[in-house]
């Protein structure tokens, strides 16, 4: 009897320790009608890779447009450069939510799109005799798309665009963005396969990490960055100067593009919507995926009538911005509380014991 117990005990302990591993288990077939590995494949091939290559390619086009303008210096070339710049900013909205790994390590998002940009620092950099180290955290606010936004669209843009110092600066900024993006892109390509293989349920597996990054982006950059901070939700007063595309005045379209990518990431049948529906997640008598989809709709409606320039909107009618913020806030709760709970995805990357 005791020997039996001992053998049973040992066997079970070994079983337990064997089961307690992070990440990959590729032996078991999926037995519910939802394929998690297919979801990761969709994310990888239909969302992340195109986002990287889209932005990367557009930066190449942008550089060409700039060099053409430098060569010709005509109005047509400048207009084309502006068009390509706007396209680059739009492509960025697609890439920003899915930055992981190396991209986070090199602070890609911070160096491409930190706003408001520091106008004085840019001015100093332009006339500086010594070489500027753009890797320094202090230089984050003097580079990237917002810096270009200022140089291109700010007051006295014409003077800047013909100034030799600023022209060199713009070339450097574009080169830098290309270099950083290439590093992140190469790393992604090298790891895309591993990303898809890592389809387990641990906190370090791909599903957890990607969903956490997606929600983090929605909460911090889409909700707070584009709407919450300018409308003064986090400060005593509204801060119109903290809007995106402050000089170009195209905040609304960037917002809508970012929202669209967030929505499509969620709504694809083989993405989170499909996952929630396969688990039949109902909340208060309705499919959670429907509730989330409806809330995306409510946000789109709240943004529809806003001014193209959020800075202007905040200054003239902040109530409408705050109304948009409230709708976005409801979605945070649905994603962060209801959805994460239903999918048993941990918010913390490395959990301690739970009881």
């Amino acid at each position, binding site marked *: 009897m005791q020997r039996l117990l001992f053998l049973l005990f040992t066997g079970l302990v070994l079983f337990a320790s*064997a089961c*307690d591993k992070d990440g990959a288990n590729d032996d*078991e077939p999926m037995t519910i009608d939802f394929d998690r590995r297919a979801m990761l494949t969709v994310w990888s091939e239909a969302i992340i890779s195109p986002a990287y290559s889209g932005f990367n390619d557009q930066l190449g086009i942008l550089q060409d447009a700039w060099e053409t303008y430098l060569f010709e210096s005509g109005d047509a070339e400048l207009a084309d450069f502006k068009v390509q710049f706007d396209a680059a900013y739009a492509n960025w909205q697609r890439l920003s939510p899915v930055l992981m790994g190396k991209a986070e390590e090199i602070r890609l998002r911070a160096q491409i799109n930190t706003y408001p940009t520091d106008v004085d620092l840019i001015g100093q950099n332009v006339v500086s005799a010594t070489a500027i180290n753009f890797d320094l955290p202090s230089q984050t606010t003097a580079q990237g798309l917002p810096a270009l936004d200022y140089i291109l669209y700010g007051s006295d843009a014409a003077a800047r665009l013909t100034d030799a110092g600023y022209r060199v600066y713009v070339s450097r900024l574009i080169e830098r963005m290309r270099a950083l993006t290439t590093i992140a892109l190469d790393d992604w390509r090298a790891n895309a396969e591993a990303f898809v293989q890592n389809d387990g349920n641990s906190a370090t597996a791909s599903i957890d990490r990607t969903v956490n990054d997606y929600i983090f982006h929605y909460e911090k950059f889409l909700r707070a960055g584009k709407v919450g901070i300018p409308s003064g939700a986090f400060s005593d007063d509204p801060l119109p100067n903290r809007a995106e595309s402050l000089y170009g005045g195209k905040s609304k379209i960037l917002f809508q593009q970012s929202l669209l990518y967030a929505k499509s990431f969620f709504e694809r049948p083989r993405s989170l919507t499909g996952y929630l529906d396969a688990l039949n997640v109902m909340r208060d008598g309705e499919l959670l995926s429907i509730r989330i989809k409806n809330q995306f709709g409510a946000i789109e409606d709240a943004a529809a009538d806003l001014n193209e320039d959020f800075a202007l909107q905040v200054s003239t009618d902040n109530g409408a911005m705050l109304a948009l913020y409230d709708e976005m806030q409801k979605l945070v709760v649905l994603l962060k*509380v209801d959805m994460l709970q239903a999918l048993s995805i941990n918010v913390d990357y490395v959990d301690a*014991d739970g009881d």
Partner: protein
Amino acid sequence: MDNRDGHKDRTDGQLTPNSPIFPAPLAVFRVGFGLMMALSIVRFWWNGWIEKLYLEPTYFFSYRYFEWVKPLGPWTYGLFVLAFISAIMVMVGWRYRLAIVAFFLSFTYIELMDKTTYLNHHYFVSLLSLLLIWLPAADYFSVDKGTDPNARVPRWTIDALKIFVGVVYFYAGLAKLNSDWLLEAQPLSIWLPAKYDIPLLGGLVHERWVHYAFSWSGAAYDLLITFLLLWRPTRPWAFVAVVVFHVLTRVLFPIGMFPYIMIVSALVFFSGEVHERIIHALIKTSKSLRAIIQKITPIYPGNLRMSNISGARPQVQKEAVKKQGPLPGFIVATILLAHLLVPWRYAFNPGELFWTEAGYRFSWRVMLMEKAGYLTYKVVDPRTGKRRTINPADHLTTFQNKQLATQPDIILEFAHHIATLHRQKNGPLPAVYAESYVALNGRGSRVYVNPDVNLTAITEDTPRTAWLMPFEDIIHGL
């Protein structure tokens, strides 16, 4: 009453709580406890949790009356070292009383440092180590006392441990007698489908009937296991069930060392004979270990009384059992009484327990709720009327922030802290409101804290129903 419990029992007269009994079960329990504790501490350190939970945060949530218990900066490591060393000393039974007191104090201090790290099995360890101070656990198979075949302890010392362990299971079972657990199979319906990648069971965990099977059998296990362990005919099978149950929960849930601690604790229900066999096995292992050690290191400390553990030289003692005196028994009885009564304190608080959590801790409600939340604070300056949103994630670690969102006393404490910070910077006491949502056991997220209540006007003694939104559902049961 069957007398085969300990073959060296005095069989004349009736069995009373003070009847002498061979202390093998107590010794094995002590060794197991010390070992489990030492391993737990190593694991805790190894996972980097000392840094993550006690060094990284800049704010710590205190228990009432224990606000003075805070991490000690780099000296915090010292607490863990102390706990580890005393656990080893308890295991080998060297200076037992000193060791177990040191362990109790250091472990409990660690637990009191931050409310957000509360775990039921840490409460179990604290209370158990308090109990062990008053039990003669080092009277046998220890460095202090060697292995005296004539050693005896009063029967109640072992029964106290059986009661202690039994109450934990039984109360955990009672806690599961509620409509969410039994009728909705919540929260297992949320947790189980996530374990799709474990072998054997992974294919089943999304099935509804599996959720109900686990819920009902979990409740049945908790309620019945103590009795099955106490009754001799069912004892071996009950122990098999213990092992299966705890290993299964270890695979399914992130509950650390708790399953192994409970498996080792359940051994206490076995008879003295079984424990003697365990001790003989341990002695044989230690002999071979010693032989190996002596082969490797020629210098071996001979002043420790390890030679006594060979059992080769039984010392004959005149008195059969040491007089314990009334004090340990009285204290143990008091501890057990508290152990029985404290879990019921929730009944004195209004509102739904799962919602308000008033009296939820220290009641053996183990893995009973899935509660997730989202919380930000709104601070309003009374002079200017200006308001701003404060995100607690900017002040707390991710771990703390997650605990904050669903536990009212922590929400309240942090609201007061924010008000204090604001007052230090800006002057008058602000009004602090919470924008807070919680999803409980598969219900959709709901507003949790009443957004119109100024939390600086609320204290720990205000009934939680006064400042939380009413819970618009009914959970039947205990």
